[in-house]
C-alpha cells in the first residue's frame, strides 16, 4: 500500500542553523511530491512541489527539496531557519493512478530555539 513516512515527530534547531526534514514514500511509480506547512490555527500552505524535471526544487520562504528516486525520498531543507519557521511540516504524495489523491505523512513539528 502507498504510504508516506516522516520519521521525525519533533525537530528542534537553533535560529540561524540549517534544517533538513525527512520524507520517504512507498509507491510503485514516480509520484507527485509536495511539502506543506501548517502554522498554529492556520490552514495548510504549499511550500513546494515536484512533478518532473530537475530533482532539486525551490519553494517559498527559502525552502528547497530534493527528490531522490533511488531512496524514495523528498527531503526538505533550509540553510538558515528563522523563528517564524516554527510550524508543522507535512510531506504528501500525489497518486497518479488514483485521481491524484494525496497521501500525507504524519507531520514533523519544528521548534526553533532562540
Amino acid at each position, binding site marked *: 500500500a502507498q504510504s*508516506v513516512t516522516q520519521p521525525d515527530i519533533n525537530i528542534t534547531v537553533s535560529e540561524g542553523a540549517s534544517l533538513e526534514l525527512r520524507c520517504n514514500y512507498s509507491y510503485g511509480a514516480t509520484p*507527485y511530491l509536495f511539502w*506543506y506547512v501548517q502554522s498554529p*490555527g*492556520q*490552514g*495548510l*500552505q*504549499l511550500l513546494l*512541489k515536484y*512533478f518532473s524535471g530537475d530533482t532539486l526544487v525551490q519553494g517559498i520562504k527559502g525552502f528547497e527539496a530534493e527528490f531522490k528516486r533511488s531512496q524514495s525520498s523528498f527531503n526538505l531543507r533550509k540553510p538558515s531557519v528563522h523563528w517564524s519557521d516554527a510550524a508543522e511540516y*507535512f510531506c*504528501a504524495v*500525489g497518486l*497518479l493512478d*488514483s*485521481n*491524484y*489523491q*494525496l497521501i*500525507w*505523512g*504524519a*507531520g514533523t513539528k519544528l521548534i526553533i530555539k532562540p
Partner: protein
Amino acid sequence: EAGVAQSPRYKIIEKRQSVAFWCNPISGHATLYWYQQILGQGPKLLIQFQNNGVVDDSQLPKDRFSAERLKGVDSTLKIQPAKLEDSAVYLCASSLPGGNTEAFFGQGTRLTVV
C-alpha cells in the same frame, strides 16, 4: 484573490448530536476536498468532488458522514450522529482539475465531541 472559506471555525457538540460544516472554495476551482485531521496526524481524505460529482469517497464513513456539493460550488459535510472519535479538524481544500495543481486549504473547523 479570496481563499477557501470555512465555517464555523470551532464547534463543540455532545456525542450522538449532529453537526454540519460549510465550505466555499476558490472561484473557478472545480475540485473540492474534505479532509479529517486528527491531532498528531496528517490529513486524511474523506471525499473529493469534481464539480458536483463524487470522485472518491472511499474513506468516508458513510453510516454517519455525508457530503454534498450542490451546483458544483459550495459544499457541506455533515456528521450524524457524532462519536467521540470524530473530534478533529475538518479541512476543506480546492484546486483546479489535475494532479499537478496546488490545493488551497481553508483554516479548518475544529470539532470537539464531548
